[in-house]
């Protein structure tokens, strides 16, 4: 009986986790290149199995909060493109990511709001280097920005001069990328060059948050949470009855 209590309580935690995920996705509905996060609601057995297969970080004795322990996955679905007309806005179509030079190794992003630092090095909006092929920096002479042209394979030209090529990579399991915040992702997967990804200058890829689905899921998760809460209360009432009535000496 007490076990049922915990099951119901863990259901509440699970639905809260689902709701927080919805909230985080909705907060980023306008973030270019944002990938919506999915939380898997797993049953306990399934979760246990998952943890035995995984890294072994599972600590026995934790509250079996099912979903909170389940890994978060990002949704690799393509976001819609929007024309911006800004010459250093770049969008991707296909599975690829831009490569940026993070503080601790390579990071990956779908957010193509780039700018030049003084001297002409191509940077992300938060001041990290955008890598070209071979992880080389891309230098665009600022006085030639007007004539910069980015081809669909990521080649950057000013007039007829080739200045570099954006490095675009993809991953065997894009859902397993880990968010670092600031639109950047990391992974220990090997990055694979991605010739199947097309680059579009003057466009931004909008977030891929499915607004309708998320709005519906907000309601669903709330109802499921209410239900789990009702279950906890029922367990409580039953226990109360047991303690009060069953134990009473007539």
């Amino acid at each position, binding site marked *: 009986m007490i076990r049922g209590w915990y099951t119901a309580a863990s259901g*509440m*935690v699970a*639905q*809260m*986790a689902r*709701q*927080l*995920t*919805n*909230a*985080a996705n*909705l*907060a*980023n*509905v*306008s*973030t*270019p290149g*944002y990938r919506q*996060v999915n*939380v898997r609601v797993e049953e306990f057995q399934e979760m246990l199995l998952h943890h035995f297969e995984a890294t072994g970080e599972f600590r026995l004795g*934790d*509250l079996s*909060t099912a979903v*909170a*322990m389940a890994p*978060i996955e990002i949704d690799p679905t393509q976001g819609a493109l929007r024309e*911006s*007309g*800004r010459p250093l806005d770049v969008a991707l179509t296909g599975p690829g990511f831009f490569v940026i030079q993070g503080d601790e190794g390579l990071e990956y992003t779908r*957010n193509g*709001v780039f*700018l*030049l*630092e*003084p*001297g*002409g090095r191509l940077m992300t*909006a*938060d001041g990290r280097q955008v890598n070209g092929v071979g992880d080389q920096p891309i230098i665009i002479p*600022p*006085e*030639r*920005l*007007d004539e910069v042209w980015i081809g669909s394979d990521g080649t950057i030209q000013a007039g007829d001069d080739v200045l570099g090529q954006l490095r675009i990579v993809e991953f065997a399991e894009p859902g397993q990328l880990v*968010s670092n*915040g*600031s*639109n950047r992702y990391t992974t220990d997967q090997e990055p694979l060059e991605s010739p199947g990804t097309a680059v579009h200058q003057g466009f931004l890829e909008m977030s891929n948050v499915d*607004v309708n689905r998320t*709005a519906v899921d*907000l309601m669903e*998760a*709330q109802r499921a*949470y*209410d239900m789990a*809460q009702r279950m*906890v*209360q029922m367990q*409580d009432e039953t226990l109360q009855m047991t303690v009060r009535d069953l134990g009473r000496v007539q």
Partner: protein
Amino acid sequence: MSAYGISASGIRMQQYILDTIAHNMANMHTTGFKARRAEPADIRFDLHDILELQSGEDEPASAGVYFQATTTLWGQGAAQITDRDLDVAIFGEGFLRIDTGAGIAYTRNGALNIDANGTLVTDGGGYVLDVDGQPIQIPAAMTFARIDRAGNVFAVPVAGGAEQQVGQISLARFDSPDGLLAIGDSLFQETEASGAPVIGVSGAEGFGRVINGVLEMANLDLADEMTRMVEAQRAYQLNINALRTLDEMIARAFDMRR
């Protein structure tokens, strides 16, 4: 509780976006105005931290979105022909260099005037500078005649006679104009992020041309701004819904012991 913070960050971000759009639309008729865009970025989302299932000694868990930067869209604004001799527009790269009295600033607003002392000034009264960083002065006993496409300023003697070149408007260009700081009145200030200005003149390599009798309008796409505004309003509402839903759930949790 950080749960509220997620949606609150979304509401705040949409507010920034709406503010930026409102600012753009308010400047629809401002000469030389460049539209801006608020750039959101996500905050690392870690359910473990947020649900406080693990005792982290790191900074408090958060998630959602934050306002990362404002980018300026530097595209050329439409030209409006005014036929006024003191109006100039820059076609292509470059800013006018202005001494505002409080320092040097840069603008694309070329609605110029001659002040009471015969100095070439902007709408806001700042001195328009030449290549040497000096104001352009119409000598006494002369009156302003015209500005040519090289930015040369000509004056004629009041008493009559041939016109003379009295100065040349200089232009400034930045490696990283995205780093410029907008200080209002269509003025920008140099920062570390923008780099130092490169000074030149109309038509020089890497610079645009000064065209007289024309003003550069705001580079606003009204339809696009309207679309964004409606979108941001909807997104704002969605985040409020998410906040309310979470609030109801948390209230329900507190209700349990009744």
